[in-house]
């Protein structure tokens, strides 16, 4: 008897494509995505942090430090914006443009090496009046700031070893009463060799190995400045509201689109289409409903965020409205497409679960994209989640004007239109046969 029950179960499973997907494909897909995100698929694809470097000092020390930062494997250090083909080389970053770049999300961190830094670049003890490197960061990416701060100390040790030795000798001289002229000559000679070695090493193309552990012993003074979220009480709330919101929006849109399949199965769709309603009108109606539902959901999500987590919704209302409409439009079209390509409600539910969870994983709803490897960040741009989260981040985190949402809005609305047209094409099967 038990064998019969088991056999029946497997027979039914074999014929249920949705159950197959949920049982076997989805877990493997998810495992693969998270393995890729966290382990880089076995390759050395640790995420590198973009750092903008402003050298206001222009001393030999600061230039060596900049070179060291450029050669640090865990950082992508740049001193000027990317040169575009056919355009003149842009000027180097200044303190002001670096602040603007961090605020706009171009890079999560900027380092400003102040004038006078080279006169006294490092110290083993706290010294008053020493020029500190300013580390400007965006606290929506807390990992990047800490990583750069630690790596900065490491880079100082590796790129400015002569300065360290020189400093050590000065401490020694103070403590021991001074060196003899012969000793002083030998030390100077050794320091020159060390500078020569450092210079030659800097010429080599291979950068040093990536940082294994951050040594924040404070050889160089660093002042951390949160240039984006300094006045915000709940830095990550907008991010999570958007991330989680979009994921559930996708589920809602999928369910709303699924009513088409319900109606097809019940015969109501035939009746509607036999009345004075065209397939395009019907799809547009369903999509409008789905979109309004999505708008309501996001509004509720952000209102809750404002009420409970102090999210500053009301001063960002225009951007919120623009992003909510664009995001809702895109996810609503996605729901229509899912319904129109599926043959049964069960199939649609299975496919929706697979696609939505995958999109949410790589699009940043479950795990911030800034912590992902570069390749995954790029793949994430194929999802609504990524564009929506980026847009909401611009609004709530970076306080950017509505006009700056153009790329996100264009992608969301454009893809929404394209997906709707594809859905309409697939929906032809429900028209007269």
């Amino acid at each position, binding site marked *: 008897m038990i064998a019969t029950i088991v056999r029946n179960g497997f027979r039914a499973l074999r014929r249920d494509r949705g159950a197959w997907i949920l049982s076997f494909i989805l877990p493997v897909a998810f495992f693969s995505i998270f393995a890729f995100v966290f382990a880089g698929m076995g390759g050395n694809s640790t995420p590198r942090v973009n750092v903008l470097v402003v050298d206001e000092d222009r001393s030999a020390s600061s230039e060596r430090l900049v070179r060291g930062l450029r050669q640090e494997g865990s950082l992508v250090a740049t001193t000027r914006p990317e040169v575009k083909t056919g355009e003149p080389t842009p000027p180097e970053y200044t303190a002001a443009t670096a602040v603007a770049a961090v605020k706009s999300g171009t890079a999560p961190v900027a380092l400003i090496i102040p004038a006078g830094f080279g006169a006294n670049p490092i110290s083993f003890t706290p010294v008053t009046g020493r020029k500190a490197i300013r580390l400007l960061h965006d606290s929506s990416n807390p990992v990047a700031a800490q990583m750069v701060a630690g790596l900065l100390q490491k880079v100082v040790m590796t790129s400015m070893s002569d300065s360290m030795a020189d400093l050590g000798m000065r401490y020694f001289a103070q403590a021991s009463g001074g060196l003899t002229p012969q000793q002083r000559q030998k030390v100077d000679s050794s320091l020159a060799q060390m500078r020569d070695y450092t210079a030659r090493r800097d010429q080599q193309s291979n950068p040093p190995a990536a940082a294994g552990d951050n040594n924040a012993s404070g050889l160089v003074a660093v002042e951390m400045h949160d240039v984006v979220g300094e006045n915000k009480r709940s830095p990550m709330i907008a991010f999570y509201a958007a991330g989680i919101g979009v994921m559930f929006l996708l589920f809602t849109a999928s369910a709303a689109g699924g009513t088409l399949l319900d109606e097809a199965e*019940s*015969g*109501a769709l*035939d*009746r509607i289409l*036999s*009345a*004075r309603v065209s397939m395009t009108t019907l799809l547009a109606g369903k999509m409008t409903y789905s979109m309004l539902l999505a708008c309501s959901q996001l509004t509720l999500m952000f209102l809750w965020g404002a009420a409970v987590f102090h999210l500053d919704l009301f001063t960002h209302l225009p951007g919120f409205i623009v992003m909510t409409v664009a995001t809702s439009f895109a996810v609503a079209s996605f729901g229509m497409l899912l319904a129109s390509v599926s043959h049964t409600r069960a199939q649609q539910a299975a496919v929706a679960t697979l696609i939505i969870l995958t999109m949410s994983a790589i699009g940043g709803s479950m795990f911030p994209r800034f912590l992902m490897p570069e390749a995954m960040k790029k793949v994430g741009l194929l999802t609504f989640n990524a564009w929506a989260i980026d847009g909401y981040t611009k609004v709530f985190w970076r306080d950017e004007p509505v006009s700056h949402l153009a790329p996100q809005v264009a992608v969301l609305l454009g893809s929404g239109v394209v997906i709707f047209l594809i859905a309409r094409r697939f929906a032809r099967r429900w028209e*007269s*046969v």
Partner: protein
Amino acid sequence: MATTSSEGPSSIPLQIDSVVKRFGEVTAVDGISLEVPERACLGLLGPNGAGKSTLIRSIVGRVRPDSGSVRVFGRPADSPAARKELGWVPQELALYPLLTGRENLDAFGRYQGLRGKTLRDAIEWCLEWAALADRADSIVKTLSGGMRRRLNMAAGMIHRPRIVLLDEPTVGVDPQSRNRIFEMVEALRDDGTTIIYTTHYMEEAERLCDRIAIVDHGRVIALGSKEELVTQSFGTRSDVLMRLDSEAHDAAAWTASRGGTLQDGVAHFPVDRPSEIASLLEAAARDGLNVIDLVLRRPNLESVFLQLTGRDLRQ
């Protein structure tokens, strides 16, 4: 009901001309031509799979014929003008289960372009017609099967079409609800609505329809009133059913000698005139047979179908 063709508006509610529809290897409708006059109630009678529903779906524009044409008051069936005149009650319960009856009628009325007072009046009329006024605000899924069937019909009538297509509207309902549905159809018929009613129950076709098309394998194999169909197949012939006390005699041999057949102790004799009964009774008395019971029965639509196809209607 001859085939006609016309391009402009016409007073003829429905003209079906040589409609063919194939699904792969299967020919669901195989060249059907029909013309349904105003105020007629045409029954499409046939077994499951005969092509009735495909024909109905061709009329409402849900199936595109491979060849032939369907015209509603002279207009192509899939034109807006034709759709306005057509009401369709599909076999399935094509309703929104989570809406109330009134909300369903409101939705389907709006899909038909009704608004405002016209819509409100139409909803009230439908609720009265379907005897659902007292359950108008109940959610559909809480209604009984019969009530849902009636609401399904009402949803097809919300725009008061001049032609209504009822596709097996009594499937799965209890006898009481079936009677209620018959009353609804009769009310429409009395009101002058042209009705096309598909069924595989000959009792329904006999009760409701003034003309009947017998459909089999995608073709109309007979068309006419019930009497015309019976006469076409059997002429004036009736059946005399004579139950015999056959213990003492060889009833089977006697029945056969008189041109009849014996089934379960009942002798069946075809007769052209009722007067032939007297001679049968005389012969039975003369040959010492005891007649226990006797019935004179005219052939029915079931008999016609059996005669035409060699199969039972419900096979």
